């Protein structure tokens, strides 16, 4: 049992009131940081996955033929021909108005109606989503597409999105792993705090423990007494840390809900992430109780 049942009369053998020492507060801080790190890790990992899925098969073909009529015809031909290929899931021509609107955000002229902007020699773009399959299949699909593009629009550039977004996804995934590492370190730090607390408790109450031993108390009886106290004190700390972390996460989530563009929009915790965050405090209490128990039993074995 995580928090063992101990008769009320036996509980009185340990005199201090609850939350008397620094342990609950230290555990609260560690738990809060653990949950925030875990939330960051989960959010980043899901973001990296979302980016990976979004860009894995996306290719943009940039047709730069000088003659605008030929350029437009090549783009239309490429869209039609590519869409008919079995390895292509979707093909879409990026309309000129859409290009102008995008460029307008950077070059001025809202809505893309600036005369200078309209006079720019813009390339024709065709977005192509390759079909599913393993990365090896994807490479073959890309080779076939390049052959097709070379046949229809010689000189066109084939730009796989993965090539320029993959480093970003890798960076995000690395950050997620770092967050996971921080969670692990903080779990270890929490366990160390519990070990120190258990040893300090044994030191403080050594005379009582020696007396209990001499009148026939078993290690198990003594351990249950201390394990219960440490588990409850730790649970208070974990509950406090969880409440603060939940408040911070809800605040961030509320602010994040307004972010709808770019990579930020891909970050979310998902059901699994929230389940993990809810499970972490319970796991922490169990870990604390188990750590306390093992520490106490090991220490008591050194006493006759």
């Amino acid at each position, binding site marked *: 049992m995580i928090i063992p049942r101990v*008769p009320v009369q*036996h509980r*009185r053998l340990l005199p201090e009131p609850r939350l008397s020492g620094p342990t609950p507060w230290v555990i609260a801080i560690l738990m809060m940081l653990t949950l925030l790190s875990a939330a960051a890790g989960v959010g980043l990992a899901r973001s990296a996955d979302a980016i990976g899925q979004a860009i894995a098969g996306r290719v943009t073909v940039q047709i730069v033929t000088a003659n605008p009529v030929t350029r437009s015809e090549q783009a239309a031909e490429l869209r039609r021909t590519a869409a008919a290929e079995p390895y292509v899931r979707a093909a879409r021509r990026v309309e000129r108005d859409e290009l102008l609107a995008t460029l307008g955000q950077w070059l001025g002229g809202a809505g893309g109606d600036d005369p200078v902007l309209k006079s720019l020699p813009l390339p024709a773009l065709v977005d192509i989503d390759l079909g599913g399959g393993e990365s090896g299949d994807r490479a073959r699909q890309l080779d076939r597409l390049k052959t097709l593009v070379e046949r229809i629009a010689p000189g066109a550039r084939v730009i796989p999105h993965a090539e320029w977004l993959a480093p970003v996804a890798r960076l995000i995934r690395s950050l997620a792993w770092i967050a996971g590492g921080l969670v692990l370190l903080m779990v270890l730090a929490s366990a160390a705090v519990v070990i120190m607390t258990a040893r300090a408790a044994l030191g403080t109450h050594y005379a009582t423990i020696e007396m*209990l*031993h*001499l*009148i*026939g108390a078993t290690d198990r009886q003594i351990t249950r007494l201390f394990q219960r106290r440490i588990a409850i004190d730790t649970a208070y700390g974990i509950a406090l840390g969880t409440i603060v972390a939940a408040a911070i996460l809800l605040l961030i989530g509320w602010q994040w809900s307004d972010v709808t563009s770019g990579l930020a929009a891909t970050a979310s915790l998902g059901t699994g992430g929230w389940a993990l965050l809810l499970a972490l405090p319970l796991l922490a209490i169990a870990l604390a109780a188990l750590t306390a128990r093992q520490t106490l039993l090991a220490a008591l074995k050194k006493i*006759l």
Partner: protein
Amino acid sequence: MQQPEHDGGGHTHFRGKTHLYGRIGDVMTGAAGPRAGGAMVEFDSVGLRYGPDGEVLSDISFNLQPGSFYFLTGASGAGKTSLLKMLYLAQRPSRGIVRLFGEDLGAMARHRLPGFRRRIGVVFQDFRLIPHLSARDNIALPLRIAGVGEEDLAGPVGEMLSWIGLDARAEARPATLSGGEQQRVAIARAVIARPQLLVADEPTGNVDPEMAMRLLGLFEALNRLGTTVVVATHDIHLISRIDNAQMMRLEKGRLSDPTGALRYPPNRS
């Protein structure tokens, strides 16, 4: 004072509920119990040293017979407390063999020690009362550790408090009790579970002569019920009060036994 009732199976009950000795009864079965006609405690060439220094006890050999009463005497520093520590299982010998209730202490697994300790009552020289517990809770401690329910221990603890004259101060903490009162509580704690072996280190050092006689009377009563009693004392008047008590004298860490009666006690008939 209410006493436990023994059943035919070697178990003891307190108001119908298996008590302390009921659990110990498990230990008492088979090899755990003293051999028929054998000694309750056997020391054979026992030596004890703390750290690298010389032995504080050397070549100690004696047998304590069940139901006997012993006084342990000797000058300060002679090793009385060290000898008692081995008797109440707070210390293993550095050499030699200590056998309690028929079991070799040196070979005894650590997890079996609590069962044996519950058969031993100890009165410490410095009382060792738990400071944040009341007198009542201190006295009740051995029964609670042995698993006796609250409804079963209220009676014996109340009677014990009354017997030592502290029923009016049952809820007092040790710090608010006088030295003599603390000693009475310590003695009550040692005897409440009616141990088979009672070890007392200067038990009357802080009480007035009248209370000393009452406490000695309790030890005698327990002894008559079969408890083996070992009392370390300097009080010569105390020693003279018990007719059949045997003397154990320690001199510079060695047991004085010129007649060999402690090592080879005559059979009691």
